[in-house]
């Protein structure tokens, strides 16, 4: 498999904190890559660099063989890199359906001011999208009335509406009630596999990682300290010490 996203020698520091200190990372076409590591290690910073929100102080990032360094977030989105957020970024006064339809419209048709947002074509596509995410029954609710799991899924659905080839997700299950967590992940995995989307996700729940990821990258102190299939990486004594030492809550999951 060829690398869809390729980072070489990425460096960025905030004051004295080195969030990335010479990171090389390839994301293969079609894979689900999990990034784990302690808080503040630079995982979200990586997503921010890959989507144009932060510019690395050194290094290169290319997507589908094309250098994307220095491009604006909007240009990068248009190339096919979507992202979702740790805190869902929804239009809180719009309904779930309108949120989804706006994302569909953002892909094509925003500048046609003479027909409504919920024109049959957009409405139908938005409904199909929500149906795939199991959100159709909540389509008429305002976005700020949803529970966290549904908000996360709506956030991701809006990113998927843009038909990205690569989706970067920042903690897709954080804040989701633990009883809903696996259901959310199942829905996500199914939709993304169906759409053929390559996914990178930052995650703290090792159970989710073990179930969802094809490969796991461990991000520690600005470097990738381990990379490989989940059963191998999650059972690595160094990784377990790192994870157990810095995030005790996840120790039992890591052992699973």
């Amino acid at each position, binding site marked *: 498999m060829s690398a869809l996203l390729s980072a070489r020698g990425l460096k960025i520091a905030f004051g004295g904190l080195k969030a990335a200190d010479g990171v090389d990372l390839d994301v293969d076409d079609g894979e689900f890559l999990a990034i784990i590591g302690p808080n503040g290690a630079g995982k979200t910073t990586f997503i921010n660099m890959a989507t144009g929100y932060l510019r690395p102080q050194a290094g290169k990032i290319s997507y589908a063989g094309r250098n994307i360094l220095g491009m604006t977030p909007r240009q990068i*989105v248009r190339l096919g890199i979507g992202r979702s957020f740790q805190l869902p970024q929804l239009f809180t*006064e719009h309904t779930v359906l*309108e949120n989804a*339809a*706006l994302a569909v419209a953002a892909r094509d048709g*925003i500048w046609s001011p003479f027909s*409504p947002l*919920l024109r049959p074509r957009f409405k139908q596509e938005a409904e199909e999208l929500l149906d795939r995410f199991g959100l159709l029954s909540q389509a008429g609710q305002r976005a700020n009335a949803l529970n966290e799991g549904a908000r996360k899924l709506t956030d991701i659905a809006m990113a998927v509406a*843009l038909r990205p080839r690569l989706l970067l997700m920042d903690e897709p299950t954080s804040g989701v009630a633990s009883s809903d967590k696996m259901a959310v992940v199942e829905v996500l995995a199914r939709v993304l596999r169906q759409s053929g989307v390559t996914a990178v996700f930052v995650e703290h729940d090792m159970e989710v990682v073990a179930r969802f990821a094809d490969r796991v990258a461990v991000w520690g102190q600005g470097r990738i300290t381990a990379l490989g299939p989940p059963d191998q990486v999650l059972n690595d004594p160094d990784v377990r010490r790192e994870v157990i030492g810095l995030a005790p809550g996840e120790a039992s999951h890591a052992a699973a």
Partner: protein
Amino acid sequence: MSRAREVVLVLGAAGLVLAIAWFVPWLRFVLTIALAKGLAVLGILLLLRAGQVSFGHALYLAFAAYAAAFGAALVPETLILLPLAALGAALLGLVVGLFVVRYREIFFGMLNLALSMVFYSVLEKFYAITHGTDGIRLPPTTFAGQVLGAEAQGWAMLSLALVLSAFFAWLMRIYLASPLGQALAGIKTREARLEFMGMSARRVLLSAYVLSALMAGTGGAVLGMTTRHVTPALAYWTTSGELVFIAILGGAGSVAGPFLGAIAYELTRVYAAALVADAWQMILGFVLLLVILFAPGGLWAIGRALMGGRRQA
């Protein structure tokens, strides 16, 4: 509310305005002014959808009124002069908009205010061209090629104001329901998301800003051609404040709000000024206070509740 019922309501409201003007002739002028201001307030309302308040939209009102005043000497035809003046204001809105849509909230409001005050100073100081605070008197203009008497001209301007009000209210409803209008409302709640979806929030706001300048300009042109006398006071910050006042009074929930608000405002003003000459501003202040405290949806929401009506854009 069904389409048919809406059309009946709009025609009924227009008929009511015409009837009032017929039975109380001196109110014809007041109502025309009210509708002209309502058009400008519609522009304020549009920007309110994005959560932005312009404290300087008198700029476009005054620009178009002065454009009509200068233009009347060259092209003395109402139906040509009015669209030209309004388009001039829209063009100015495009130029100013490119700059102000980079800012939000208090900075957006104050920048608009500052620019309108610059224009006010220009109108006031360049006496040789603008006649300063004396203002400019508009020569009579024809209406569709006809030379009308004062009476007929008054009716023509009121009818024109009614048609323009209905047209822009309709246009704005279509715009607000469109993806662009919905994205505009998104600026208020989650502007960053628009960028994440590959959309430029600034361009979305700019489109609304130009449309709002066009509407304020249309109102300004009607105002200028109705009063037949333009002064720098049109661009003064109190005029901009008045537009925001009317927007809140009428209610931001419907495109009917600005016109309801403007008519109520102008009628309150003329009657309060006649009854308590020194205290009419205080009365307006209390009215606004009551609206904010007890009816944040404005007169439109009160009217809707009275009619037992349903939600409407």
